[in-house]
């Protein structure tokens, strides 16, 4: 999970994202970053801090509070041959640009009969856990994963934070990258051997034999912690990090379940109509006869995320919930 030994932390998830931006800006002069407060302020979560000084205001562009306009401008610039990286502060605010993302970015290539690809990267924060209440905490990446024409990524490790951007920029179509707000300060050693991520594959973060914990993004650390607890209970859990939410890597998911015969899908979004539902459905469609127990799901309670700490904690999937679900499947 990129959490190196205490006291030896070499880099943070935030710094890894920044390094990836720096590399992309260095590598290709068509690349530029734009969004609210990405420049002078340094990014609302500090990701782009220092890049304005390094690359100048033409390539690190502060925008007005106009999500629809600057996302739409990113689409146009991408169609014109540039490689914009657009930052939206949080997924909740991306709803003001949803029209541009869904009705333009995802459709133009198709509507134009293949004439106009949109090589755009959009980054945004997602998720809860910081007591920011119901307009700053939701996990709507599953909605975006519903849309054909775009690719949806959720880096959960420092390596993926560092190495997903380059292949995302190389993708000729729109790519949405969801950064979970609780991960920015996660620190650890960046594996020097890590290179560009294959955006078509999920990753097995921990091998196991008794049950598959299938998750992504901010829930990965919780699933890893649950796997530790389960190991102490004598249950060997495999942890699968989806990391690409669209298109889903069916082979890795079903391969894992075919080995372990049990699955818990963990997703911080609400259960109804969720990505967890999609994953669960694919498992039953493709490896139903491998299953020794019904697929379990651990999702957020069906409530707008509340402010008060104990309520927020109760609303979100926690490691203990994952452990309980695993026991239900195994016992």
């Amino acid at each position: 999970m990129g959490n190196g030994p205490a006291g030896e932390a070499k880099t943070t998830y935030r710094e890894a994202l920044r390094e990836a931006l720096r590399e992309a800006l260095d590598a290709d002069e068509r690349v530029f970053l734009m969004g609210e407060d990405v420049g002078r302020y340094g990014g609302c979560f500090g990701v782009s801090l220092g890049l304005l000084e390094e690359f100048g205001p033409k390539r690190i562009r502060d925008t007005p509070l106009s999500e629809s306009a600057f996302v739409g401008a990113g689409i146009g610039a991408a169609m014109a041959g540039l490689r914009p990286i657009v930052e939206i502060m949080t997924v909740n605010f991306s709803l003001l640009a949803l029209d541009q993302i869904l009705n333009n970015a995802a459709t133009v290539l198709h509507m134009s009969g293949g004439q106009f690809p949109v090589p755009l990267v959009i980054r945004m924060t997602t998720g809860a856990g910081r007591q920011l209440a119901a307009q700053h905490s939701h996990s709507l990446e599953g909605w975006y994963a519903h849309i054909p024409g775009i690719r949806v990524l959720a880096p959960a490790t420092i390596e993926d934070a560092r190495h997903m951007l380059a292949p995302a920029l190389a993708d000729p179509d729109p790519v949405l990258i969801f950064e979970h707000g609780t991960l920015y300060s996660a620190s650890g050693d960046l594996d020097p051997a890590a290179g560009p991520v294959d955006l078509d594959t999920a990753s097995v973060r921990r091998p196991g034999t008794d049950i598959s914990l299938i998750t992504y993004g901010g829930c990965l650390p919780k699933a890893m912690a649950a796997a530790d607890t389960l190991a102490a209970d004598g249950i060997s859990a495999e942890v699968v990090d989806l990391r690409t939410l669209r298109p889903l890597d069916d082979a890795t998911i079903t391969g894992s379940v075919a080995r372990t015969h049990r699955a818990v899908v963990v997703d911080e979004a609400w259960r109804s109509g969720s990505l967890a539902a999609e994953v669960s459905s694919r498992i039953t469609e493709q490896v139903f006869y491998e299953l020794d127990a019904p697929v379990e799901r651990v999702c957020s309670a069906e409530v707008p995320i509340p402010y008060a700490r104990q309520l927020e904690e109760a609303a979100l999937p926690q490691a203990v919930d994952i452990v309980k679900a695993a026991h239900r499947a195994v016992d």
Partner: protein
Amino acid sequence: MTAARTPKPAANPVRTARTANPARTAKAPRRTRPDTAGADTSHDRDLLRAMLLIRRFEERCVELYSAAKIRGFVHLYIGEEAVAVGVSEALTPDDAVVSTYREHGHALARGIPAEAVMAEMYGKATGCSHGRGGSMHLFDAGHRFYGGNAIVGGGLPLAAGLALADRMRGEPRVTCCFFGDGALAEGEFHETANLAALWGLPLLLACENNLYAMGTALPREHAQTDLAMRAASYGMAAWAVDGMDVHAVERAARQAVEGIRAGSGPHFLELRTYRFRAHSMYDPDRYRDKAEIEQWKERDPIATLTERMRARSEWDDKALATIERLVAEEIDQAVEASEKAPTEPAEDLLRFVTSRSAEVN
């Protein structure tokens, strides 16, 4: 400077005919207190106390945030108190207020008890949003306070809807919507301004121009920085006001509210102010000059008012000390009550998700 920068548009006969609503004049508008802005000691004392309550309340919030009693995003209003207090003076309890995430001042000036606001920041059951909202989402139906909205511009269409309902029912009420200079860049502002002007809605658009949208200075956010002029282009009365002078704000707000009640449609006030503190508790404030902040502090709305009162001589340090003491007591009580208040039990997590689940308990 309350000088009308943009004169009220001449009555448009077409629009008047289209929106004429006899029911609107059926009820006499309820009166606010008489306009005594800048002339009356007891009124000034009220204004001062209201501004001091906001200032000291938020200073306490900073301490409580450091002590981890309050969490989440907290946006301070310190420096902008004259705006909330001056505008609220022009509103009656029947009017409605729609606010932003920077809304402690609006809520307190509206009369929501400090205790209910503080308890909400604590995430307690006695909070004005039952611990669900926190600092950015204060709500109070009793005070017709329709919430802190944390989507920039998000409150504007909603406010237009409240005003529309009053318009359709012939209620002589005004809806006041607060928002920042940054919100003028959002499409929702422009859509709402057009709609409200087109339909002649009883809407007060109170734009708090504090010169920054987070770390982005006004001229880096807007091609045309004359915000009142832009609002006027939608065909509504709009002018700029010195938002550091509570008397100027009150006078302008009364004039605007009167115009709205008289049926001349939405009014826009550009209230020129400044936030003395960072955007939020997370903001290291790297994007502006310390000297600029100090300069604006010389125009501190609270000091400006006390000096004006002192000059009228019916005012001294003792009187100020009395108000400070009363305010401190009110805040102490709010903190004490919030400390003692029960938390919402986690079993009630799903309460308020639907109206039916709100009834449970």
